[in-house]
């Protein structure tokens, strides 16, 4: 059978294609409605609740889960952990796509896409935390694009440009760490402006520290989680080095995540004690807080530790999913569930069906782009022409 016959017989109606096709069509329809009829026509946002899941999930969770890029690249290039080198490209790609779609999702919330560069051109709001977040995200997205570019340039065959981009690795990694430290913590600092709106169990003067430390947990866990999923979906695209290093990478990152989770739990308790909010633990919100802390901080901390001790890879993979869910829950708690907690039930926010469609649309687009790139570019394997350069 010739190659053209094989191509002709390729079945486009696979379950993956059908599901993603339906989501994309729904996403495009809601996008048209949102940009032609305005925010109110597709969302449940109001003056009381100006931020919904497009900020709480798409932005807050998206930025946290994209932290794998700076965590992995700093571990490898700044702390010299060369044994994790094969994880850098998948992590940078996840980070790049995460941030890129954070910016895309932001357009749905703020509208008028052509005005996005206004803060950097028309007026510098240097006293605003949102300005700092916006500037850092814009710069870090550029840094991630440059960090990712060697893989794309290798695929395209532009050797000289690729070598030039490769030489910038250390500088870009340092920029990445600085910018991530700034904006990951500033996302938490945004809520310092609303102490009366955020429930006291989640509000703390240490919110910037919480957001930054939990972003490290998100980054480490996301690398393990994404590695586990990729292992199943793209096993045939993985090079020998990646496959050899995969287990030790999961154990190393799980050990680090376990330690950071223990530290995160400690500073959460310090925050609770500093606010003297112990009595709130016996309220409804208190039980929800304990559910988050015990189920998604202490439990993954313990399970990661057991997984590392016993060299049990399945436990570590499942725990990474638990830790990632914990980050999602934490960001939703801070930005939506425990926010405006004093409002009467009728005034509380719940996302509309169309808001959820856009969020699912964004996640689907990330998966499609990830799949498109890893099946074409040298992400899970080393390009044979550049084998020496990567070590």
């Amino acid at each position: 059978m010739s190659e053209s016959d094989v191509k002709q017989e390729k079945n486009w109606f696979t379950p993956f294609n059908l599901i993603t096709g339906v989501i994309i069509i729904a996403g495009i329809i809601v996008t048209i409605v949102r940009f032609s009829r305005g925010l109110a026509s597709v969302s449940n946002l109001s003056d009381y609740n100006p931020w919904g899941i497009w900020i709480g999930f798409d932005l807050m969770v998206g930025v946290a889960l994209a932290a794998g890029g700076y965590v992995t690249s700093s571990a490898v290039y700044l702390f010299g952990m060369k044994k994790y080198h094969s994880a850098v490209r998948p992590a940078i790609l996840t980070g790049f796509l995460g941030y890129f779609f954070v910016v895309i999702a932001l357009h749905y919330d703020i509208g008028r896409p052509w005005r996005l560069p206004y803060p950097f051109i028309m007026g510098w709001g240097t006293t605003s935390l949102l300005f700092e977040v916006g500037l850092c995200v814009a710069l870090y997205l550029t840094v991630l694009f440059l960090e990712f570019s060697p893989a794309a340039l290798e695929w395209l065959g532009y050797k000289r440009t690729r070598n030039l981009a490769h030489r910038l690795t250390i500088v870009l990694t340092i920029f990445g760490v600085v910018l991530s430290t700034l904006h990951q913590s500033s996302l938490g600092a945004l809520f310092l402006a609303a102490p009366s709106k955020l429930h006291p169990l989640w509000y703390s003067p240490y919110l910037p520290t919480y957001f930054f430390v939990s972003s490290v947990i998100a980054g480490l866990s996301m690398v393990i989680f994404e590695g586990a999923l990729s292992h199943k979906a793209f096993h045939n695209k993985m090079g020998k080095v990646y496959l050899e290093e995969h287990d030790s990478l999961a154990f190393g990152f799980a050990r680090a995540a376990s330690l950071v989770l223990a530290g995160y739990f400690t500073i959460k308790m310090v925050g609770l004690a500093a606010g003297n909010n112990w009595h709130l633990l016996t309220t409804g919100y208190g039980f929800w807080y304990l559910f988050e802390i015990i189920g998604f901080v202490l439990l993954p901390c313990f399970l990661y530790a057991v997984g590392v001790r016993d060299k049990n890879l399945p436990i570590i993979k499942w725990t990474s999913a638990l830790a990632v869910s914990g980050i999602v829950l934490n960001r939703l708690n801070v930005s939506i569930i425990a926010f405006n907690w004093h409002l009467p039930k009728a005034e509380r926010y719940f996302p509309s069906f169309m808001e959820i469609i856009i969020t699912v649309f964004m996640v689907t687009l990330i998966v499609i782009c990830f799949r498109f790139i890893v099946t074409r570019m040298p992400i899970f394997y080393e390009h044979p022409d550049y084998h020496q350069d990567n070590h």
Partner: protein
Amino acid sequence: MDEFHTLQEFLLHSESVVYIIMGLSLPLFLWFWSFLTGRDKEFRK
């Protein structure tokens, strides 16, 4: 809920608890580290 009449009383109480937590966390971290790395030698053999 504890009753505090002055900021000084509140800070004395809350900061004291913070110091106790920090004091307890240090030996707990050492224990946790030994738990985490306890079987490393076994697997290296």
